[in-house]
């Protein structure tokens, strides 16, 4: 059985990736940095399954400050594929916590690459990078050749990690690559993200638990895809003959207004009756919204985003409604 190692396994992408790899009969090792939160995380269904936990899925306490411990754990696991998804995930928060962000998002990757470089076992390595590395891009849509030009500490740290993965590929001939991910959503999204914030509010308004939804602005636009497809793309990247960098995106832009409209529509409500504007919530809007060109991944990997924008939002609202019972 192939062996995979996932950092960030309790996050949205890590948990879908664990589901996918377990269904493909992989042995999966996951790194968790808080033993107390695993039971309520996105992998709680796996942890609670005695046929999987400790048999096909192994969790290790660990964090990136402890390089010696990581080295021990990874050497023992001998992974064939390594998916590095962990890291503080908010560009906005990185302006508040720049040093901690650069440690967890940037230096962490370098430590992992150093460990893999010394392994006797040949391990394919994928780094989950982000469209934030393009910052305010000079053209749209962006592709794998678009200049890197981050505008937040988060974006700069992601760019550092992505460049390091490329440098190790060239300098040491290691199979290391990055996936440049545009926004991708699912019912496992954290409540900090705008899609989930809207879906949760709409579900609560429909049930009469909440009266209105406060938003900063409706004009922001993003390229939103379906997370399980993006995770599948990551796996496809490491199955390719040549390990290389790819963009995963839909190539289509939608506005927050469309998010809101679709979300309310899916439960038969008019958004204008419920949305209130709070100037405190306005964040800077990019002059050019990030929009990715997925044609390389489509051409070389046969990758597709299978769930369209409207259906994605419907599914998020439906999942939040189910949680309310």
């Amino acid at each position, binding site marked *: 059985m192939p062996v995979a190692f996932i950092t960030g396994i*309790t996050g949205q992408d*890590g948990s879908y990736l664990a589901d996918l790899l377990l269904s493909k009969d992989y042995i999966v090792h996951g790194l968790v940095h808080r033993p*107390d939160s695993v039971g309520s995380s996105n992998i709680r269904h796996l942890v609670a399954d005695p046929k999987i936990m400790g048999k096909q899925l192994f969790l290790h306490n660990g964090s990136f400050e402890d390089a010696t411990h990581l080295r021990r754990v990874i050497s023992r696991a001998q992974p064939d594929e390594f998916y590095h998804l962990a890291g503080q995930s908010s560009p906005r928060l990185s302006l508040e916590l720049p040093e901690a962000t650069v440690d967890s998002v940037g230096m962490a990757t370098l430590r992992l690459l150093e460990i893999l470089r010394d392994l006797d076992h040949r391990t394919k390595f994928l780094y989950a990078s982000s469209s934030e590395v393009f910052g305010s891009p000079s053209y749209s849509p962006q592709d794998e050749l678009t200049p890197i030009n981050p505008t937040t500490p988060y974006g700069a740290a992601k760019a550092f990690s992505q460049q390091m993965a490329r440098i190790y590929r060239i300098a040491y001939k290691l199979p290391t690559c990055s996936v440049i991910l545009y926004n991708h959503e699912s019912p496992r999204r954290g409540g900090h993200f705008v899609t989930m914030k809207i879906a949760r509010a709409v579900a609560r308004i429909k049930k009469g638990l909440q009266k209105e939804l406060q938003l900063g602005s409706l004009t922001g636009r993003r390229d939103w895809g379906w997370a399980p497809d993006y995770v599948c793309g990551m796996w496809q990247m490491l199955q390719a003959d040549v390990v290389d960098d790819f963009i995963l995106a839909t190539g289509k832009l939608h506005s927050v207004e469309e998010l809101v409209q679709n979300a309310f529509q899916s439960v038969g409500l008019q958004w204008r009756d419920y949305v209130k504007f709070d100037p405190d919530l306005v964040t800077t809007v990019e002059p050019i919204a990030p929009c990715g060109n997925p044609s390389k991944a489509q051409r070389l990997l046969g990758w597709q985003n299978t769930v369209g924008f409207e259906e994605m939002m419907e599914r998020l609202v439906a999942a939040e409604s189910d949680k309310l019972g």
Partner: protein
Amino acid sequence: MYKKTAIITGISGQDGAYLSKLLLSKGYKVYGTYRRTSSVNFWRIEELGLLGHPDLHLVEFDLTDLGTCLRLLHTTGATEIYNLAAQSFVGVSFDQPHTTAQITAIGALNLLEAIRLVNPQIRFYQASTSEMFGKVQAIPQVEETPFWPRSPYGVAKLYAHWITINYRESYDIFGCSGILFNHESPLRGREFVTRKITDSVAKIKLGKLDVLELGNLDAKRDWGYAEEYVEGMWRMLQADVPDTFVLATNRTETVRDFVIMAFKAVGIELVWKGNAEKEIAEDAATGKLLLRINPKFYRPAEVELLIGNPAKAKEKLGWAPKTTLEELCQMMVDADMRRNNNGASF
């Protein structure tokens, strides 16, 4: 109305929840910090009915980021800081010694440096722990007992303890260190042995679990009720002079005693058989196996006996524990019976 403003680091933990309840009831404005993860959880604050309280502000924060510490003190205008945040799992600290040192030791230093730079009048509480006594040098332990930590966690906490005293002596900062012995409650995490026991006993009683597995049953601990201990923290920062205090009950019991108490709380009596790694406990009424030893829960270096004498806190702060271990155990078992009956427990 004038309000005092406090920062509590580690707001999502047991003590953070009880302390915010206490400070809010006294009219404080509270900034509670937490470390963002994909699974951050405020169930404790929610269970105390404080989520959404207008004077409670939850702030994403990282103690290892000095720049952010400075900004937090500056922007909140806090007059008191309670440093409860830590990598607090003793077992994990053996796997993650660097992380534990960064958060638990250097994190305290970062806050003290920030106080020194931003406003040396800010009063500082450092959450020290009986784990610093480790291989104990005297029984019972008091403020003057020499330390001998037995885990990277204990060593890191000892650094934070001494650096607090050092900043008190060097820069006249009002820094207090509270050496708290084990303090438990229904809000304890299930990674801690008492809560693991009460949650498992509830699950066994309800037929949701077969057997409870534990490590060293002979470890002796001094267990008090957490809600009373956070009151002691607050009193330390209201005193005339900063000082170091032990908060404890001056009674020690084994893990085995706590197990017996917890099963008794749901009406199950135990019969013990075998010893060391082979020791088991059965239901006296039915003969069903209820407890066995799993050596994976043994610590690399065990702390055998902790018992603290809180006489100084009683004399200078008027603080004394009230809840007995039997009452505490009953309270925890009742809460876990209720939670497991309603579906799930955290």
